[in-house]
Structure formats: structure tokens, C-alpha cells
């Protein structure tokens, strides 16, 4: 049964990908890309990667679709016909390059351990320590959270910085400066009374769910990143329904930027604190008398840092894009 679903999802992925190549309407392409994200999330569930599925659904089907749609509303919905004279459209060359690359990869798979093998190096080296000892060393059930926040906590620090960098990049490039004469920014769905009332009730629930995902990450799928995205989505919803001007009153630019910075600083400070207490950077054992207790505290705070930065940066990115879209064009 499982392998049947496996094959079905894979073929749906291939179909979606081919459709993306063919379709010229970028709105449809964006939706297909969202579907692709959702399908891969389902695939990840099948592969026992619940945390990844959660994130891919939030990012691939959620955030990135939203951002692309916002951009499309500024750049136009349709792709130009490819074979106009003078274009450098060379499908044959591209196809040759892609076929060559793919052939090399397929060649490379021939000596790979077969799919699902229990004696593959990935299952027998390094990972057993996480699975067997994390219960004693870190004592939280979700091994993904242990590896993410502690064993490879430094990678996750890098990940937070990546998100922060994207936020800085978006601000540096498209932050609108002409805020002196605010035009009345109308919400796209202002007239829909039912939507507005229902969403008003939904928003607090979304926020609470965000907090749940944030603090429950040690026990089940979830954690700072997913929580940050969910938390931010409540603000997106508010902005879409009540207009950017109204949303701006709730989220102050300066404060959100400060929070984005503070999340990164919180993560780094946990590392530095461990260092001051005599351990290595991010060695949570040095945060408390008891090693396991220290690990718990460390993970709690770094996940909080991740959550704060992710939520703030997502809000920054979304608001910067939307404001750019709605303001009267004055290129700087």
C-alpha cells in the first residue's frame, strides 16, 4: 500500500513539473509550483520526515506562493511567447545540457545503497548516536529537534542568519522610502464581510497554534521555524483583509526590524553564555548545573530566537513587497 502511494505521488510530481514547463500563464505556474510544494510535503510524510513536511508545506505551498503572486501583480501575469525573433531561446541546447547532467546523476546512482536499506552507511554511521544516546544526553523525544538545536545547533544558527540576510536584502532593495504621503491603501478583500468576521476569529487561533508549535517542537514535529511562519501568517491575513494601512498600525516597522535582529542575537547570546560559563560556543551543558537541564534551556531559547527572527523577517518581507506594490511608482 505504502509503495503504491509512493509511486502515485512521484508520478503526480512529474506531471506537475512538466505542466510548469508547458504553461505560459504565470499565475497558473505559481499555483502549480504551490501544488508541487504540497506534493513534496506529502512525499516527506511518507518518508517519515514530518518536520520537513510541515516546513515544506508552510514554505513551498504557503510563503513562496504568496510572494510570487505579489510579485506577479507588479510584473505581469503572462510569459512572453518564447520564439519571437531575436530571442536567445535555445531549447535544444538546454535539453542537451540537462540530459547530460541527468545522465551523469543516473550513472552515479548505480552504486548507491538501494532505497530503504537498513545497512546503508547513512543508517549505520553517525546517526545511531543521535537515536540511541540523545534520550540520555538531551532527553527530548523528537530527535530531529535534538540534532537541529543541539548536535548541529551551529548549522541552525547559520540558518537563522540566512533568513536574516534575506530580510536585510529585501529591505535594502525594495524598502519604500516615500512614506511621507501615505496613500489610502485599500485592502483587496475589504468588501467581504463574511471573510472578515470569520478571519477575525481565526487570527487569535492561528497565533495560539503558532505558540503551540513553538513550544511543542521537542515532543512532536514543529519548532521555531514552523512556528515563526505560522505566527507571521496571522499578520498576512490581517493585512489582506483589513488593508496595509490598518496592518501598519499593528506592526511598527522599527520594532519588527529590531525583533528580527534580537532573535539572531538571542541565539548567539545563548552560545556566548555557554562560552562565558567555560564551555564551547553553544555547549548547553554549561547553561545549568545539570547537563540535561542545560540542554533543555538552551534548546528552548535558541528555538525562541529562531521563531522570533523567522516571524519578524517573514512579516518584513511580506509588508515590504506589498507596500512596494501599492505605492505609486517612483523608482529610486
Amino acid at each position: 500500500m505504502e509503495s503504491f502511494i509512493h509511486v502515485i505521488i512521484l508520478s503526480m510530481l512529474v506531471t506537475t513539473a512538466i505542466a510548469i514547463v508547458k504553461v505560459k500563464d504565470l499565475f497558473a505556474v505559481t499555483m502549480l509550483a504551490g501544488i508541487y510544494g504540497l506534493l513534496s510535503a506529502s512525499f516527506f510524510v511518507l518518508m517519515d520526515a514530518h518536520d520537513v513536511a510541515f516546513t515544506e508545506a508552510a514554505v513551498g505551498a504557503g510563503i513562496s506562493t504568496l510572494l510570487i503572486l505579489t510579485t506577479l501583480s507588479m510584473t505581469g501575469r503572462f510569459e512572453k511567447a518564447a520564439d519571437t525573433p531575436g530571442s536567445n531561446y535555445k531549447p535544444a541546447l538546454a535539453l542537451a545540457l540537462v540530459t547530460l547532467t541527468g545522465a551523469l546523476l543516473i550513472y552515479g546512482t548505480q552504486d548507491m545503497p538501494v532505497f530503504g536499506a537498513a545497512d546503508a552507511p547513512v543508517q549505520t554511521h553517525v546517526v545511531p548516536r543521535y537515536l540511541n544516546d540523545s534520550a540520555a544526553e538531551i532527553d527530548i523525544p523528537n530527535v530531529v529537534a535534538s540534532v537541529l538545536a543541539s548536535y548541529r545547533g551551529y548549522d541552525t544558527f547559520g540558518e537563522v542568519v540566512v533568513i536574516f540576510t534575506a530580510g536585510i536584502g529585501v529591505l535594502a532593495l525594495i524598502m519604500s522610502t516615500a512614506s511621507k504621503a501615505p496613500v489610502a491603501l485599500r485592502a483587496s478583500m475589504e468588501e467581504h464581510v463574511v471573510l472578515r468576521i470569520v478571519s477575525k476569529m481565526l487570527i487569535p487561533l492561528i497565533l495560539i497554534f503558532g505558540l503551540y508549535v513553538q513550544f511543542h517542537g521537542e515532543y512532536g514535529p514543529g519548532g521555531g521555524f514552523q512556528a515563526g511562519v505560522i505566527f507571521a501568517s496571522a499578520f498576512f491575513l490581517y493585512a489582506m483583509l483589513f488593508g496595509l494601512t490598518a496592518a501598519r498600525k499593528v506592526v511598527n516597522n522599527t520594532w519588527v526590524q529590531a525583533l528580527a535582529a534580537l532573535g539572531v542575537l538571542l541565539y548567539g547570546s545563548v552560545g556566548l553564555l555557554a562560552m562565558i560559563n567555560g564551555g564551547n560556543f553553544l555547549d548547553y551543558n554549561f547553561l545549568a548545573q545539570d547537563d540535561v537541564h542545560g540542554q533543555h534551556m538552551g534548546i528552548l531559547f535558541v528555538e525562541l530566537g529562531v521563531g522570533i527572527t523567522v516571524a519578524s523577517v517573514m512579516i518584513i518581507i511580506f509588508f515590504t513587497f506589498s507596500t512596494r506594490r501599492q505605492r505609486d511608482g517612483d523608482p529610486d
Partner: protein
Amino acid sequence: MEFLGLFNYWVVIVLMMIGFYIVICSNNLIKKLIGLTIFQTSVFIMYISMGKIDGGTAPILAEGVTLYSNPLTHVLILTAIVVGIATTALGLAIVVRIKESYGTVEEDDIHAKDKQA
């Protein structure tokens, strides 16, 4: 799942290559970025497939379970997904600016305008 053997990887490679093809063959910048997303997501699928173990469950420790899928690939891909969305967001920001200053988001039109200048 034995019969899946390496077949799973081959399909994933096809997916990766479709994404790669969209990147290099699209004239529209937004479609290029979507292609990059497809390319990257397919690489994520490859990683996650590598970590799957037959009969295993999600790596959340529980009584009576002995076989878990590889949590490390999950962690790596969580990071990679974040990197992916960061790249997409920044790329779109640049596209917005390109539209504003060139008036187009089609690669050959941009080339044409650069040649005139």
C-alpha cells in the same frame, strides 16, 4: 518496497532535471526562479529518500519502537528549505526592481535594452 530499488532516485533525478531545464530555458525571470525552487525541492526529495529506512517511523522516540528513519537528513533539509525561501525572496525583490527600471522581466528584452544603452 523492494521493487522501488533505485527507481525512486531516477524519478527524483528526472524532477531535478525538469527544474534545471526551467531555469536555463525560461526567458521570464519569475519562471526562472520557480524553476530554481523546483530544482532545489527535488534535491530535498533526494536527501529525504536517502534517509528512509524500510519499516521505520518518524524519528520521535517512543516506547516499543526500534526502527527510525534518519533524522540527520531531515535536519539538513530543514536548513536547506530555509535557504531556498531566502533565495526566492531576495530573487523576487531583485525582479521587482528590474521591472521598475527596465520595464520588463523578460531576459531577451533586458538584453536588448542593455545593447541600446
